[in-house]
C-alpha cells in the first residue's frame, strides 16, 4: 500500500474541508439589510484604476500591487483617499504614463482627484503607502513604497506636498512593499520601518513555467534571494538615519510583505510583526536601547503547525479576545490557511485559526489586505479579509479547486466566537476580486467604518458601512504632544454600562495600506459611554481619564489638555 505521509495528507485534505457556502437566505435579503454597500465610481467619482502592466515575461511585481490609504491630508475632518499605481521602471514603461491618485473628500459621498495640485503622483512602479506625521506639524505625510526607489512626500499643509526623500535619506532602493510609522525608541518622534521583499530587477527576473503545456507563469518567491528590511530613525530635523544594522533588524534577510507595529508584551515598547513569503515570519521584540530581538520561532508565529514557512502576506494585530494582550493575524496563500495567533502573555502565541473556523474558511484562499475593526459597533473587533491568488494560472493548475479571483471574507466576533458572515454582508461579498490592499476609514463620518480595497489591474472597490447608526459609538482622534504625534502605541480603555473594552492604536497592519487615524469605539445599544482612559505612549506615559463624553460623533483629544473637543 503506498505510504500516506502527514504532509501529503494535509495537502490532499484541503479540498473537502473547505466550502464557501452562500445561504439561500442571504440571497433573499434586500440590500438595505446588508452592512456593506459597494459605491460605484459613478457615485464616488473615483474613476482612477490600477494598471499592473502585465507582460508576457510575467515580472513578479506585476501581480503583487498595489496599496491604498484613507487619510485626512487637509485636516478638514473628512477622510480622503490615496491610491498607488504602477509606473515606469526597468521592466515597464507605460504609455501614457501612469500615476498614483489623491482624492479629496467632497463631504457628500463623492471625491475629487487633486493629485496634480498636491504633487503626489509618484510615477515609479508603486507598491504601498504609509501615512504619518513624522515632523509633528499636524499634517499627515506620505511615504510611498515602490519597486526601485521609494518616496517621502512632506505635507506642506496647504494641499500640496514636497518630495523630501533625498534630504530625509529614506529612498530605500530595491523592491519595497509595506511600511509603517512608529516610535521604536520612545523619543516622541515617528520612525519608519520599510519592508524589503526580494533581490529583484529585470536582469534577475526568472522564467517560470507550469502546467502540461509549460505556460509562462509568475515565479514562487522562493526562487529569489531574501533581503533585510530597513529601519530609519527619525532625527527630528527632517532627516533619518538608517539604523537597520545596529537595531538588529538588518541581520535578518526576509521576504517581507506586511508589517504591523504593536506591543506584544505590554512593556511599553512597540514591537514589529513582519509577514514573510516562503520564509519564516519575523516577530521583532523591542528590547529597548534601540535593539530588537527576533523571536518568531520561539513565539510560535514564524511557521505553520507543521513547521513549514508559509507565504505570509497581509497581517494585523488587535486584542480580539479582550484579555489585555495584543493578538496577531497573518494571511497566507492557498493550502496554507491563515493564522489567528492568540497571545499567551509570555511572548508566545497559539494559532486558533482551526478552533475558530477561520482556518477552514481560508484553506484555499490567498489573503492580502485585512484588518480587525468593529464594523457593527457592538464593541467587539471583527475581521475583514481581502483575497486573490497571485498566480493567474492557478485555476488551470488546480483544476479550478483554487480561484484566481476570490471573494472577500467577513468574520463577526460576538465576544466568544467567530462567525463567517460573508454571505449575509452584501452583494460585494459574492464578487470575486484580485484584491490586494485594504484600508479602513469612515469617509462619511457616520460612525460606520468603511472600507477601501485596491484591486490588482482593476479599479478600487469602495464599501460604505451602513451599520453606523444601528449602534452607538464614539470616534476619537488622538494627538500626541510629548508622545508621537499619531499616538501609535496608545492604549484606550472605555466603559459603557456592562461593556468594558481595551484597544491599542497599532501602526499599519493590512497589506501595502494605511488607515483612518481615528478610532471608533462601539458601545452597542448602551445609551452612554461612562468613561474613557488613554494611556499615552512613552516618553509621555501619561494616563488621562475622561467622563461626560458625547456619543455618535467624533472628538479630538490632545495629549495633556485634559479635555476633548
Amino acid at each position, binding site marked *: *500500500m503506498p505510504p*500516506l*505521509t*502527514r*504532509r501529503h*495528507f*494535509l495537502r*490532499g*485534505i484541503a*479540498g*473537502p*474541508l473547505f*466550502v464557501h*457556502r452562500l445561504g439561500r437566505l442571504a440571497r433573499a435579503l434586500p440590500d438595505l439589510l446588508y452592512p456593506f454597500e459597494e459605491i460605484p465610481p459613478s457615485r464616488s467619482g473615483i474613476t482612477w484604476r490600477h494598471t499592473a502592466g502585465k507582460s508576457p515575461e510575467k515580472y*513578479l511585481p506585476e*501581480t503583487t500591487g498595489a496599496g491604498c490609504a484613507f487619510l485626512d491630508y487637509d485636516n478638514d475632518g473628512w477622510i480622503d483617499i490615496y491610491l498607488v499605481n504602477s509606473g515606469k521602471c526597468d521592466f515597464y514603461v507605460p504609455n501614457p504614463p501612469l500615476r498614483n491618485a489623491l482624492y479629496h473628500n467632497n463631504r457628500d459621498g463623492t471625491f475629487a482627484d487633486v493629485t496634480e495640485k498636491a504633487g503626489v503622483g509618484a510615477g515609479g512602479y508603486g507598491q504601498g503607502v504609509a501615512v504619518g506625521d513624522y515632523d509633528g506639524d499636524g499634517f499627515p505625510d506620505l511615504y510611498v513604497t515602490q519597486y526601485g526607489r521609494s518616496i517621502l512626500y512632506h505635507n506642506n499643509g496647504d494641499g500640496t506636498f514636497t518630495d523630501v526623500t533625498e534630504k530625509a535619506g529614506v529612498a530605500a532602493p530595491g523592491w519595497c512593499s509595506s511600511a509603517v510609522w512608529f516610535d521604536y525608541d520612545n523619543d516622541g518622534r515617528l520612525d519608519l520601518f520599510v519592508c524589503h521583499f526580494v533581490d529583484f530587477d529585470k536582469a534577475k527576473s*526568472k*522564467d*517560470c*513555467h*507550469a*502546467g502540461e503545456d*509549460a505556460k509562462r*507563469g*509568475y*515565479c*514562487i*518567491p*522562493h*526562487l*529569489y*534571494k531574501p533581503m533585510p528590511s530597513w529601519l530609519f530613525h527619525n532625527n527630528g530635523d527632517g532627516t533619518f538615519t538608517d539604523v537597520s544594522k545596529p537595531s538588529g533588524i538588518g541581520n535578518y534577510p526576509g521576504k517581507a510583505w506586511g508589517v504591523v507595529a504593536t506591543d506584544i508584551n505590554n512593556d511599553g515598547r512597540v514591537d514589529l510583526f513582519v509577514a514573510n513569503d516562503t520564509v*519564516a515570519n519575523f516577530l521583532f521584540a523591542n528590547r529597548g536601547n534601540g535593539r530588537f530581538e527576533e523571536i518568531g*520561532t*520561539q513565539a*510560535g508565529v514564524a*511557521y505553520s*503547525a*507543521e*513547521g*513549514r*514557512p508559509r507565504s505570509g502576506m497581509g497581517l494585523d494585530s488587535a486584542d480580539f479576545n479582550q484579555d489585555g494582550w495584543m493578538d496577531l493575524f497573518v494571511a497566507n496563500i492557498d493550502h496554507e490557511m491563515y493564522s489567528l495567533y492568540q497571545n499567551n502573555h509570555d511572548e*508566545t502565541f*497559539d494559532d486558533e485559526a*482551526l*478552533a475558530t473556523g477561520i482556518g*477552514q474558511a481560508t484553506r484555499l484562499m490567498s489573503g492580502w489586505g485585512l484588518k480587525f475593526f468593529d464594523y457593527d459597533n457592538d464593541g467587539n473587533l471583527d475581521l475583514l479579509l481581502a483575497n486573490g*491568488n*497571485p*498566480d493567474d*494560472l*492557478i485555476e488551470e*493548475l*488546480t*483544476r*479550478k*479547486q483554487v480561484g484566481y479571483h476570490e471573494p472577500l471574507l467577513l468574520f463577526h466576533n460576538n465576544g466568544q466566537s467567530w462567525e463567517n458572515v460573508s454571505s449575509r454582508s452584501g452583494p460585494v461579498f459574492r464578487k470575486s476580486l484580485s484584491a490586494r490592499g485594504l484600508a479602513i476609514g469612515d469617509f462619511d463620518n457616520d460612525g460606520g467604518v468603511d472600507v477601501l480595497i485596491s484591486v490588482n489591474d482593476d479599479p478600487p472597490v469602495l464599501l460604505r458601512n451602513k451599520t453606523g447608526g444601528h449602534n452607538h459609538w464614539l470616534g476619537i482622534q488622538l494627538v500626541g504632544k510629548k508622545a508621537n504625534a499619531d499616538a501609535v502605541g496608545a492604549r484606550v480603555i472605555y466603559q459603557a454600562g456592562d461593556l468594558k473594552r481595551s484597544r491599542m492604536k497599532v501602526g499599519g497592519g493590512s497589506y501595502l495600506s494605511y488607515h483612518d487615524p481615528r478610532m471608533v469605539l462601539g458601545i452597542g445599544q448602551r445609551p452612554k459611554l461612562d468613561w474613557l482612559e488613554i494611556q499615552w505612549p512613552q516618553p509621555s506615559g501619561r494616563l488621562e481619564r475622561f467622563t461626560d463624553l458625547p456619543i455618535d460623533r467624533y472628538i479630538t483629544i490632545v495629549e495633556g489638555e485634559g479635555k476633548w473637543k
Partner: protein
Amino acid sequence: MCEPSTFRAAVALIGAVVVTCSAQVARKPQTPDISSSARHSLELAKKGHCAEALPALRRSFSRLGDKDLQRETGLGGVRCAMTLGQPDAAADFLQILGREFPNDPEVLYVLVHAYSDLSTRAAQELAHVAPDSEQAHLLDAEALETQGKWDPAAAEYQKVLQKNPRAAGVHFRLGRLLLSKPNPGPDMAEQAKKEFQEELKIDPNNAGAEYVLGELAHQDQQLDDAVQHFSRAASLDPSFGDAFLGLGAALISLKKFSEAIAPLEAASKLEPANPAAHYNLGLAYSRVGRKPDADKEFAIHRQLTQNNKGQDQGDPSQNPN
C-alpha cells in the same frame, strides 16, 4: 472485467532496448574459457541468436572477473531473456546487475524498463487468466487512481468489495481516493471517514486508517478523538513516525505540552529528517520552560528547513507562484 487499456501502458521503450531475436540457428561456440564463451555469446546475441546465446550468457555471467565484460554480458542477458519471454532468467540478470553496478546509468535505465516490462506482462497475464478476479479489479483500480481517474477507480474498488466485502485495504484505498479528488463535495471528508472506519472493522490493525482518522479529527478540532486515533496508530506500528508526530501535534493543540514531549521525541528519532517533528518538539520544550532543549530543536528544524529549500534560487522551471 478489467479494462484492457489499463494494461497496455508502459512497454514501448523496452522494445527499443531489447535486441530482436531471429530464428537463425547459430554455430556452436568453440572458445574454451569463460571470457571467451561470454564474448562469443554476446556476439551471437547481437546478431539476434538469443535462443542460442542465453544459456551461455547465464552460465558465464556470475563467474566473470572482468567487470566490463560482466556488465556487457548482463545487459545482453537481460535483452535476450526479455526477448525470449523468460522472466525468471531476466530477473536473475537484473538482480546481479543492480547489485554489482548500482551507480551505472545505463544499467539503471535497463533496470527501469525491464522491471516495467515484467510488471506489464504480469498484469496482462492476470487480465488473461482471471479477468474478473478480485485482484484484477484491484490492480485496475490502482492504475486508474494513479491516472487521476477517480470515479472509474472508485467503481473498480467497489467491484472488489462486491466480490469480497471483507477485502482488507480496499476501504482504506477508497477513503484515500476520496481525500485526493480535486473539487470534492462538501461531505467528502465525512464519506472518507466512514471508509476508514469500515476498514478498521475489517482490519483493526490498520495503522494507516487510524492515522488518517486522527488527522481528520484534528482538522475538525475533535482533539480528544485525534489523540485516541494517533495513539492507536502509534501503538499498532511503533515505527510509524507520522503517527507519533500527529499525536504530539494534537496534544500541543490541547495545550498538553508536557504530554506532547514523549511522542514528539519518538517522532524525531523515527524521522530525524522531518522538520515538523523537530519544530513541534521545540515548541513543546519551549512551553514547558526547557529553553536550551527548545533552542536545540529549533536549530535542527532551521537547518532541515534550509536544506529542504534546495530549490531556492534554483531551476525555475515548473515553479509557478
